[in-house]
């Protein structure tokens, strides 16, 4: 134990300053105007904090390997820390996307930029780890794999910081260049070599304790989940590094842009979401096909309903409809699971809201996980909607002119020029009409800073109608009576932010400590107040129901 603590301290103190270092330190002319935004203020520290948090599970893993105490004891601690890191990383990613959407003015939020990828990679492997540890916890299997995932997550975090700082790959995030990069590369090399050595040394101690029973089981679905997540991780890493490889091998510069990732990762994510619907319905060890068929009924109906309604509603994109149907399948599966749990509790005398609360309170891990899944489905629906159905139009307008886009009408009046001590803002004055009614006035603008004359910043009004965003960028102007604007209509984008929040909430639910404490409080005060009737007749039947729900 002493060695463990020592090692923990050493790794945390030695490694975390390394990870913490690259927080951008502005000096000289002041902050780049693109970075003067609250979203910017928050998201990089969040991501770096996430990176750094991965060093804790890593330290635990290394400590376990060094001391040879490779039982499940370290696993629980690691899980909680990974979950914390995962939640922070999720928040960082969503905030980063939100910032890009509100500031950069290209109507999107995720561009598969190398730095974005670098932030996503450890998140993906951490997600894989959070799932596969459950197999180790319950069945004592996959030990080697789990350790590998922890180490990979940490190595990818280091890779991420290295990539941001070194500027070896061209990226919109290349705000700073410095020679700090080579240190990270050396550090990364040491981490990988050291861990691989330790790993091989400890391999004999990592034998699985139990045997695998059936492919169609919870274990099997976790393996599929891991395969997909690792596949996405590798494809993303490969795409990020391929320009370097190509340059080194063929002296050929090329880019690997969003179309590549969309085509490779898109289908994988959709399969992942499908697996997310089926996986939790499977029992550990093996599932009878009858039980599975019974559980799949409702989600399948949800998917069929979605597949039938969407084309009738005029949506004719085949892939989008397939993706939406899969999303509704999974959402149906999750909501049905929650409903069943609530229903069982309700039958024993709890009113529905209390039953819902108690369900999440009592089985935090499981229902927190469902919440995360639900958030991811929402996010996926948002991504599919804005990816497939974004409408974009450019227009050059003079006063009194109007433009029509996807049911909206924009009427232009003129420009207004405002001068400040450190710059100038030019705004276009526009009315938004919809269904013959004036909705509101919007003022897209361009802000010029005296110190950064060649880097104007867009001020983008984003008006949300239902779940659809009207996103107007003021591109250029000519005097006070001509404006060039670019308008995006982004359906369902709000679901991306909402889904991100739900995921975070789910992560926190899983992570939230104090279950033991609460239970103590409950036995002191709670039990006495429970009406007797509630406890009568609950016995084995309830247990059976709960087991069925599991």
């Amino acid at each position: 134990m002493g060695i463990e603590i020592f090692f923990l301290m050493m790794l945390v103190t030695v490694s975390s300053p390394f990870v913490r270092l690259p927080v951008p330190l502005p000096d000289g002319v002041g902050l780049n105007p693109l970075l003067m935004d609250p979203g910017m203020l928050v998201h990089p520290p969040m991501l770096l904090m996430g990176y750094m948090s991965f060093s804790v599970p890593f330290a635990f893993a290394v400590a376990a390997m060094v001391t040879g105490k490779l039982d499940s004891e370290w696993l629980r601690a690691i899980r909680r820390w990974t979950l914390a890191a995962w939640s922070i990383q999720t928040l960082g990613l969503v905030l980063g996307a939100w910032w890009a959407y509100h500031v950069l003015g290209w109507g999107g939020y995720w561009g598969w930029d190398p730095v974005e990828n670098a932030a996503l990679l450890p998140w993906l492997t951490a997600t894989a780890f959070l799932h596969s540890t459950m197999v180790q916890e319950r069945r004592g299997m996959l030990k080697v794999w789990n350790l590998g995932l922890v180490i990979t997550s940490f190595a990818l975090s280091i890779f991420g910081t290295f990539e941001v700082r070194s500027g070896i790959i061209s990226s919109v995030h290349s705000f700073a260049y410095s020679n700090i990069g080579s240190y990270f590369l050396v550090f990364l090399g040491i981490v990988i070599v050291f861990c691989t050595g330790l790993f091989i040394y400890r391999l004999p101690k990592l034998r699985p304790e139990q045997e695998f029973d059936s492919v169609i089981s919870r274990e099997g679905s976790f393996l599929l989940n891991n395969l997909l997540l690792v596949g996405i991780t590798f494809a993303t890493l490969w795409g990020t590094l391929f320009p370097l490889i190509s340059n080194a091998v063929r002296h050929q510069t090329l880019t690997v842009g969003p179309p590549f990732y969309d085509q490779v990762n898109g289908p994988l994510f959709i399969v992942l979401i499908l697996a997310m619907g089926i996986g939790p319905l499977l029992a550990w060890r093996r599932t009878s096909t009858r039980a599975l068929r019974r559980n799949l009924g409702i989600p399948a109906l949800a998917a069929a309903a979605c597949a039938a309604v969407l084309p009738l509603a005029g949506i004719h994109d085949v892939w989008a409809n397939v993706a939406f149907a899969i999303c509704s399948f999974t959402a149906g599966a999750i909501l049905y699971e929650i409903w069943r749990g609530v229903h069982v509790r309700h039958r024993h005398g709890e009113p529905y809201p209390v039953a819902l609360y108690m369900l999440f309170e009592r089985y935090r891990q499981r229902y927190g996980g469902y919440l995360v899944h639900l958030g991811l489905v929402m996010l996926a629906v948002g991504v599919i909607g804005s990816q497939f159905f974004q409408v974009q139009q450019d227009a050059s307008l003079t006063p009194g002119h109007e433009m029509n886009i996807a049911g909206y009408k924009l009427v232009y009046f003129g420009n207004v020029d405002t001068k400040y001590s450190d710059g100038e803002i030019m705004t276009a004055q526009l009315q938004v009409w919809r269904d013959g009614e004036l909705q509101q006035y919007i003022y897209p603008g361009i802000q010029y800073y005296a110190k950064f004359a060649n880097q104007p910043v867009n001020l983008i009004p984003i008006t949300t109608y239902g779940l659809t965003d009207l996103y107007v960028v003021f591109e250029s102007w000519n005097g006070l009576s001509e404006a060039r604007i670019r308008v995006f209509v982004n359906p369902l984008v709000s679901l991306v932010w909402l889904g991100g929040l739900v995921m975070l909430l789910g992560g926190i639910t899983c992570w939230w400590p104090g279950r033991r404490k609460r239970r103590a409080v409950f036995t002191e005060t709670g039990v006495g107040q429970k009406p007797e009737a509630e406890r009568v007749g609950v016995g084995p039947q309830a247990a059976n129901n709960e087991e069925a729900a599991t």
Partner: protein
Amino acid sequence: MRKRRSLLLCIAVIAIVGSIWSYMLITAPPQGTLDQRVHDVASQLKCLVCQGESVADSPATLSQQMRALIRQQLQSGKSEQEVIQYFVSRYGDRILWSPPWQGFTLLAWFVPIGLLLAGVLLLFFILRNWQTQANIKTREHGAVEPEEMDAGELAQYRQQLEKELAADDPIFARPRTEAN
């Protein structure tokens, strides 16, 4: 009887969804509007004067001109692939926003896809191996555990399980455990 009804329901649902989808596929226009096609082509091309933006997304003047050119060429009847080819012949492969499906850059596509397929195969063989091992073991050891247990042991286990469940959540508490 119930089984038959659910089978019928299944068939009905499949038939309804299938007919709607085939109707959708038949009536859907083979290609999108001109705006959409311009956007499709432009999002395949990289803006050469920007950092990490496609021609479709970039507000730069060069990209605006390129979008106008794409529109013009599509209007004159060129296919999307031909327009992209036109830009490649002028600027080289570096204008492509994703690596082309030929020569060396095929690696970019095939390595991840190939490895994923290899992963699926590996997983399949590993699982099969584990499963046969488990089966052999089961056969060697004869009967599975539950039958080896006698009734008293089973009752003991059940009692313990109930106690633990009750401690975990009062909803599982039953009068008998209370009495103990």
